[in-house]
Structures are given as structure tokens and as C-alpha cells.
């Protein structure tokens, strides 16, 4: 059974803006799929439609074989936003255990799981800190731990590292791949960084704007596990170029996407 099946999804907003038109996409279990495109291509809207947080105007989405609304009610996915969206009044441990409380887990069971999650995201020792006592990168790791705490089969991520500096972002990229490998979840990841999409993904879905649609899908054939060295391989640069050209062909003016300039192309 596919992890996510999107069939003929379109979304128009009441103001007459067409955010998405005729999206078809199937994601298999264990895949890491990035949605990349310029602002206004509807990638975040598509992510929210998968999560049943926004209703599509047409088409259907199924998650683990269930309609998206049922999948949401049955806690089939965890979500991470660009802001960590931690509750200030809860400690790190209590933020992570929020979904477990809503699922009615007993206190000892919650405590045990929180302990596991805190060590998964390498925040042991910070359980009793409040969000404002953490750096942006640490807050986002808490947010990831919360999204994974109840072991959902699917992880939806909406530009989770977009607000972080490049060094923190690269380290969290590597950490995310380790977590993905350890948990075996399916990940759908929205980004507007080309190197990030190439480094993380098994497939990159390139979207183009006005109206939002899928321009092309690029399979990333770099071997797993990926490390810092992956970013320096010639194949990495080839794939980055391929994604960039697909974005340009899809009508995204170059420079609109946020990415570090590549100083040199390998021979």
C-alpha cells in the first residue's frame, strides 16, 4: 500500500487565486520526497492538503490507504512547521508529550517515550527547559521529536529549517536523515533550498507557480547513508544543476529561490 496517493488535486481560494491545479503524486512507504518551488507554487498548501488541514477544491488524497480526513483523526502523520510552534508554558518534555496526552497515554508510558525521543534528537539534559531557553535549532529538534513521538507512519515538514542559519541547517539535515533511517518513516519535506532537497531526498518534486503544478520529478540516486562528503561528490552537483534547470524551465526566475551560490562547478 502506498504511503500517500494524491489524485487530481486542485485548490482555488475564494479570492479567485488558483493555488494548485491537477496534482497527481504517489509516495511509497519509506520514501523521502521533497517539494521544491518558488514562492506561490502551492507547495505548503499541498502539504496541508495531505494533512487535511486545508480542503482541496477537487481531487482526493489518501494516506496509508485511508482518506486524508480519517488519516488525520487516526494520527497517521506528524507535522513540523517552519516555526517550531512550541507552547511557551510547557517544558521540552511536556511539549514532546503533548500528542501522547491527546492520545490518552498513561503517565509512565509518556515519560518513557519522551525519554527515548529526547535522546533521539540529542537533547538529553534539556527536558525541563522552557522553549525560550533554547536556540532556534534546538527548538526545531523538539518540534521534530514531538511530531515523531507517537510513531506516525508519515512525517510532514513545512520548511522546517528555513529560518535557521546555514551551518545549523546542514547539521540538522544530517540528523534528520539519521532519524529517518532509524524510524523508517515516510517524509514529505517542503523546502526552497535546492542543495537541501537534493541532499535529503530520494525524489525531488519540482513545482512551478501560477497556477501551482508539478513540473517534473527528479530521482536522487545518490547512495545512502549520506554524509557531509555526499555534498562534495560530482553527482551531487549534477543533481543540483538538474533541479535548478527544472525550476528555471518551470518558470521560476533564478535567484528567487533561496540557496547558497555555488562557487565552482566540478570538472
Amino acid at each position, binding site marked *: 500500500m502506498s504511503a500517500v496517493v494524491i489524485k487530481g488535486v486542485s485548490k482555488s481560494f475564494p479570492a479567485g487565486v488558483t493555488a494548485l491545479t491537477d496534482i497527481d503524486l504517489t509516495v511509497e512507504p519509506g520514501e523521502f520526497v521533497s517539494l521544491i518551488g518558488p514562492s506561490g507554487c502551492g507547495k505548503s498548501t499541498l502539504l496541508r492538503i495531505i494533512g487535511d488541514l486545508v480542503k482541496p477544491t477537487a481531487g482526493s488524497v489518501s494516506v496509508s490507504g485511508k482518506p486524508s480526513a480519517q488519516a488525520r483523526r487516526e494520527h497517521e502523520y506528524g507535522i513540523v512547521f517552519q516555526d517550531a510552534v512550541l507552547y511557551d*508554558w510547557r517544558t521540552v518534555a511536556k511539549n514532546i508529550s503533548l500528542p501522547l496526552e491527546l492520545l490518552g497515554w498513561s503517565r509512565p508510558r509518556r515519560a518513557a517515550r519522551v525519554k527515548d525521543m529526547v535522546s533521539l534528537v540529542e537533547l538529553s539534559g534539556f527536558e525541563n527547559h522552557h522553549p525560550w531557553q533554547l536556540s532556534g535549532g534546538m527548538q526545531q529538534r523538539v518540534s521534530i521529536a514531538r511530531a515523531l513521538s507517537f510513531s506516525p507512519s508519515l512525517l510532514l515538514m513545512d520548511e522546517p529549517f528555513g529560518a535557521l542559519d546555514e551551518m545549523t541547517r546542514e547539521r540538522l539535515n544530517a540528523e534528520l536523515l539519521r532519524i529517518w533511517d532509524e524510524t523508517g518513516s515516510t517524509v514529505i519535506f517542503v523546502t526552497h533550498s535546492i542543495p537541501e532537497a537534493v541532499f535529503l531526498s530520494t525524489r525531488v518534486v519540482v513545482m512551478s507557480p501560477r497556477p501551482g503544478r508539478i513540473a517534473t520529478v527528479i530521482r536522487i540516486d545518490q547512495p545512502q547513508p549520506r554524509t557531509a562528503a555526499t555534498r562534495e561528490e560530482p553527482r551531487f552537483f549534477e543533481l543540483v544543476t538538474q533541479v535548478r534547470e527544472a525550476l528555471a524551465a518551470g518558470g521560476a526566475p533564478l535567484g528567487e529561490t533561496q540557496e547558497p551560490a555555488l562557487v565552482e562547478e566540478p570538472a
Partner: protein
Amino acid sequence: MSAIVQPVPRSLGRRVGRRALDWFPALVVFALGIAAWQGLVVAFNVQEFLLPKPTAIASAFWDQKHSLWGAGVYTFKEALGGFALGSGLGILVALLFAAWRPLGRTFMPYAVAANAIPIIALAPIMNDWFGLLNPFSKMAIAAVLCFFPVMINTLRGLTSVHPSSIELMHSYAAGRVSVFRRVRIPNSLPHLFTGLKVATVLSMIGAIVGEYFGGPIDALGVRILNDSSYGNFTQAWAGIVMASAFGILFYAAVAAAERAATRWHPSARVFQAE
């Protein structure tokens, strides 16, 4: 990883010491102000009915400390009753308005209009309705004064929630009650306390002004009014000092409750002076 602000563990003794140090400049200003008052009254030979000397007020206060304390407690009970009533109702209405927006749209204009009425003007009416000697007549005035600031601040706290906070709860299929309990109500606490702190002062004003329009002889407002009518200005000032003391302590108590309830708030951040 960037710097992490650690809460500073400190012993109670050191905390009290630091708190005293924090207050030191304010205390110096207070002492200087009183000294200047005393000096000016003596230097310019200001008449007692205009402004008595602080030392005279202090000695009047000391002479009547027992009866003043009794009067203060009586009036404070009225203020506290009105505060509880008005704030409780304010919180309840804010919850209803936040839970059901059409209700807010329908009734908010009336709440705003009611707030524009000079509520003190209703004091004689309340005395008439509930009886001059019935403490409830003063509680009613204090309650009406407290209602609006508590309601409007709490409502703002309940509704000014980041949209992704709500989206996150939806992703967990959380119900309405759960969203209120886990997001909206905790989010409203700092705002609620802002309203409550304003309400402490208003409740004391409501009770005392209510008493100016009549009340039992051992109420603080009645005493202040009688003392000034009979020319005992120093005693009247001593009454005002007692009223202020209760007002300040009431405010401080609510501020302490706020600190205890919102320790998690970024404003609780402790900066190390060293």
C-alpha cells in the same frame, strides 16, 4: 549551538537580598520625597488643612492604628468581594465570547458602551438598590469597575493565538475543549493578569468612592469623608495612607500570583547582573 540562557539557581536568602537591592533606588526616592514634603511644609508654614506634615500624619496613623486597621479590613473585604465578582464574570464572558464569536460580535458593542459610562456615577444608585449599610452595594460598584478590563484583556489573550498553534492541534485531531484547555487558556494568562492588576486598584477605588455616598461609620471611606468634613485633615490623610497600603498590598499579591502562574513566560527571564 547558540548560547542558552540558564535559569539562575539561587538560595532564598540571596533572592531576598537581591530583591531588596532592586528596590533600593525606589526606597531612596520615597525617603527623599517624604523629607522634601516635610521640609517644604515647615519652611513655607503650610496650613494643616491644606497639607499636614508627614510626621503629623504618621503620628495620627500610629494613634489610631487599631481602628484604622479595622476600617481598612472592612473596606478591603468590599473591594475583594467586588474584585472576585467582577473579574470572575469578566473571565466567564471572555471565555463565552472566544468560544462563540457571533456572541462576541452581538454583545461586544454593549460591553464597550457600558464601559464608557462613568461607573462611579452609579454609586448612589447601588447604595439605593442594595442598602447603604449592606457591603454588597460597594461590592457591586467595585465589580462593575473590574469587569471590563479583565474581560477585554482575557479575551485578547484567548484569541491572540498563533494560527499554527491551532493548526498543530488540528493535526492531532484535538477537540475544541482541548484547544481551550491546552492552548487558548494558558496563552491568555499573561493578558488575564494584566487585567487583574488593573482591577485590584479599581476595586479599592470603587469601594471607597461607594462609601463616600454613605456606609457604616467604621468603613474607611466614611471615616475619610467625616474626618475631612470636621476639619481633622491629619486623620483624613492617615485614612488615605491606610487605603493606599491596602491597595498596594492587593496589587503586590496579584503580581506575585502572576509570577507564580507564568514562570514559563519569556518575560520571567532572569538576567545576571554580574
